[in-house]
């Protein structure tokens, strides 16, 4: 067992390889992960954060895997004194399987050829990502998580955790996510993939020496960004404002603020993200279906044991509130302890990154209660002890 209190970026080599949902197997897997805060003596305060499509292990501020001080991707929510308080909780975040930020993915070297896998990398599912995280937790010696949390694709992983490992997950915070993609979201993913696959520089995925299919990847990211915003937030942020000119140029150049914003987001993304990983991540999301193998979602969730906090955002049209409500209704049917709130926000899907205070309102008391319950459990308290505590006993003391 490794020293679980060591913080910062680390890499785990999985000795045993990984069997995948597709039936294929990865012999060599490495997982890039970061930890923040300290595991308490009862091992009752571990919180796993799962990242979304373009995220990585660097969830909170601090040195990243290259040793550079960088803001974490969920920095307003995770850190000292924040909703997921690294002063109280031991926070773990790993780059997902198939990713491009240190964990084995299509850009990694195939041990058989020593060349990057490219499209020879097996398709991975959200459940495969979870299996890699399970191996990471086994390595860290953490038998049970106080909470698995995540937004968007991170929320899908959190939900998959609860279904696959009910005994290892005390609670789930599933934010701006869905139990399966609707046709509209699959459609946007497919447009993004089509842009990448149709870029002449894609070279069937073997572009690593020549350089990224940057046009296709940038277009994919631009489409993605449109789906992360909302009509309201775009009107507010850009309106019809022109950039650096007062009149139309009557040429096909970047004129509107919104064009300039999307172009910038596309360019920035190409510098840091692998086009193949974009293909693999979007496919994993398209395949994700929490009800898989059962007639109804309620049936699929019959075995869950975790507490759930489900949060949606009023202007999120990528994973709209009605999908969160379907999940909540199924959890009710499965008699799970589930709480739900829709957060009023104009920021669309991106709200999970931009509305820290509104999330904190729910996340903070939810986590505090779960961890105090986990501590009691670790000390050998039974369920009967738990209910005998006075009504105010939910708060951390």
């Amino acid at each position: 067992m490794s020293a679980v209190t060591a913080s910062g970026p680390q890499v785990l080599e999985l000795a045993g390889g990984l069997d995948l949902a597709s039936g294929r197997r990865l012999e060599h897997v490495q997982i890039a992960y970061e930890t923040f805060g300290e595991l308490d003596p009862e091992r009752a305060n571990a919180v796993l954060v799962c990242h979304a499509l373009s995220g990585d292990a660097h969830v909170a501020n601090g040195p990243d895997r290259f040793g550079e001080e960088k803001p974490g991707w969920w920095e307003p929510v995770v850190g000292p004194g924040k909703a997921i308080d690294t002063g109280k909780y031991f926070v773990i975040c790993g780059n997902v399987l198939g990713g491009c930020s240190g964990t084995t993915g299509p850009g990694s070297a195939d041990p058989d050829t020593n060349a990057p896998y490219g499209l020879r990398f097996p398709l991975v599912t959200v459940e495969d990502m979870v299996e890699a995280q399970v191996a990471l937790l086994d390595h860290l010696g953490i038998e049970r998580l106080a909470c698995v949390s995540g937004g968007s694709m991170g929320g899908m992983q959190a939900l998959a955790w609860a279904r696959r490992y009910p005994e290892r997950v005390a609670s789930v915070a599933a934010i701006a996510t869905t139990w399966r993609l609707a046709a509209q979201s699959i459609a946007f993913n497919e447009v993004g993939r089509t842009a990448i696959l149709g870029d002449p520089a894609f070279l069937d995925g073997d572009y690593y020496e020549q350089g990224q299919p940057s046009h296709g990847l940038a277009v994919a990211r631009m489409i993605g960004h449109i789906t992360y915003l909302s009509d309201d937030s775009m009107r507010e942020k850009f309106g019809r404002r022109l950039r650096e000119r007062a009149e139309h140029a009557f040429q096909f150049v970047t004129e509107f603020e919104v064009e300039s914003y999307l172009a910038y987001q596309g360019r920035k993304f190409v510098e840091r993200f692998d086009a193949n990983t974009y293909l693999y991540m979007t496919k994993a999301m398209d395949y994700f279906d929490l009800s898989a193998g059962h007639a109804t979602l309620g049936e699929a969730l019959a075995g869950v044991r975790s507490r759930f906090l489900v949060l949606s955002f009023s202007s999120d049209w990528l994973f709209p509130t009605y999908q969160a409500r379907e999940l909540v209704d199924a959890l009710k049917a499965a008699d799970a302890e589930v709480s739900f709130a829709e957060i009023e926000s104009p920021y669309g899907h991106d709200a999970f990154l931009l509305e820290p205070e509104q999330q904190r309102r729910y996340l903070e008391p939810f986590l505090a209660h779960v961890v105090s319950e986990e501590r009691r459990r670790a000390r050998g308290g039974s369920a009967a002890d738990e209910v005998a505590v006075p009504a105010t006993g939910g708060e951390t003391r």
Partner: protein
Amino acid sequence: MTFADLLRADLRLITEMVPEGSRVLDLGCGDGSLMAHLRDEKACTVRGVDLSPEDIASALSRGLSVVQTDLDEGLSGYGDSSFDFVVLSQTLQVVRRPAFVLREMLRVGQRNIVTFPNFGHWRVRGYLAARGRMPVSRSIPFSWYDTPNIHHTTITDFRDFVAANGGAIEQEVSLVTREWAGQIRRVRVWPNLFADTAVALVKRA
């Protein structure tokens, strides 16, 4: 003073009506006071719904599960007869579709407890009769145009309402409550005139 003393008088009566270990759904659960009390003192399995973010957050800090729900849209996800008791406390008068809400309660709860302010109380009648104005009082502190209480009822009206929507009143307790803790008195004579609050145990007819 124990925690129970701090519970609103009608909530105390509800806890008396609910047997140990019951499954209870609290509609309009607020900050979860009743749920926490039923869980901690009577080992009940409790679930709640409410609309207010502040109240949901308070209930979460007590370790309670609350789903943000607009009662006027029904109780989707909760199975038929999936709760021993469904509680609707001082909330009937604020919903837009009281009949639909009652029918949903009757579907989900084997028994249901409804508490509501009695608009037939003599003070209310006297206010309207004497002043010719919509009553504003300590217990109904709103003007007619900005009140959340859009569906006032009297005890007599409530009986008709339940019967018309497929329910039957199993037990009815009429109360005079006081604002301070602990003061609560049952009304046995002419409850529709002398009670300011009613608690009814309702089941499917």
